[in-house]
């Protein structure tokens, strides 16, 4: 028996895909609220851009992670493309590449946090670092969640089952990339 999310389309949009759009809409409010809060503090506190605040973040590490996430997003859309033509094994392989990008991102982020914490930039250092760790931490947890889902899907997709799910996880992954696109200039560039 196939899941309702796969077979029913009451709105003209498959229920599974509609559900992912709803998830993304709610995530916009979650991440958006956080980013909007950061933005208003940044604008009201000029010291955020200096010294022991945003001035201490490593721009090139952030840029590298942006490159990694953009590349994994490209890999995700290519997995979707392979799924569309019914090539499950290729789609599964590209999902693995995408998850691999997520892994690189998390590893680089871990190194970055280790360096920052060892220099005394902890979550309680000041308001900037509180925002930094909360925003980047919630984002990283979404990256890890996406990787886990891709690994769960891998086996079915490789056997040409439930290929529509490649697009669903892809859309989620693109959104995670999209959040980072805004986090990067806010936390690393605006100094």
């Amino acid at each position, binding site marked *: 028996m196939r899941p309702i999310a796969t077979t029913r389309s009451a709105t003209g949009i498959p229920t599974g895909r509609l559900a992912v759009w709803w998830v993304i809409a709610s995530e916009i409010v979650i991440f*958006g609220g956080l980013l909007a809060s950061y933005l208003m503090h940044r604008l009201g506190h000029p010291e955020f851009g200096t010294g*022991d605040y945003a001035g201490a973040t490593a721009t090139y590490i952030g840029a590298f992670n*942006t490159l990694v996430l953009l590349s994994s997003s490209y890999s995700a859309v*290519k997995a979707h493309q392979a799924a*569309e033509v019914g090539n499950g094994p290729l789609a599964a392989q590209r999902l693995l590449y995408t998850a691999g990008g997520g892994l690189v991102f998390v590893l680089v982020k871990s190194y970055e946090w280790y360096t920052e914490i060892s220099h005394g930039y902890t979550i309680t250092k000041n308001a900037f670092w509180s925002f930094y760790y909360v925003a980047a931490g919630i984002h990283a947890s979404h990256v890890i969640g996406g990787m886990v889902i891709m690994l769960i899907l891998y086996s079915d997709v490789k056997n040409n089952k439930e290929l529509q799910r490649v697009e669903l996880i892809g859309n989620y992954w693109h959104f995670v*990339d999209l959040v980072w696109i805004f986090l*990067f200039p806010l936390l690393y560039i605006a100094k």
Partner: protein
Amino acid sequence: MSDHGHAHDHKGHGGHGHDAGHGHVGPSYEKTFITLLVLLAISVAGPEIGIKWLTLITAFGIAIVKAYLVASRFMHLNVEKKIISYLLLAAVAFLFLFFAGVSPDVMKHRGNNWENVAAQDEVDRATIESQNVQPHH
């Protein structure tokens, strides 16, 4: 199937037969990806010039363009049913409402009949301190 033919249809394996195929025609995924990389390079190089307004344009202006490219080309919002765009825009509208309601209290530290002494003191303290401290990176 070429990059241009995003048909949004998994008939035969997914079984849900998306909304009759979007027939996406536009720049290939490769071109979109390369454009994103070029924009990333500009957003990193912009601040090196040291002009503040140029940094803001290259950082946030380009972030908006990159977000548009990812949403429209990779998430296929350009060929998705309009109701989804309205749904996402409604979520963004709530953010603007939130910002408009809260930001005056956070961004300003004094008004006609009030003053946020603690916030202003923190700005003064941190500004002086940050001038005396060099970042570790």
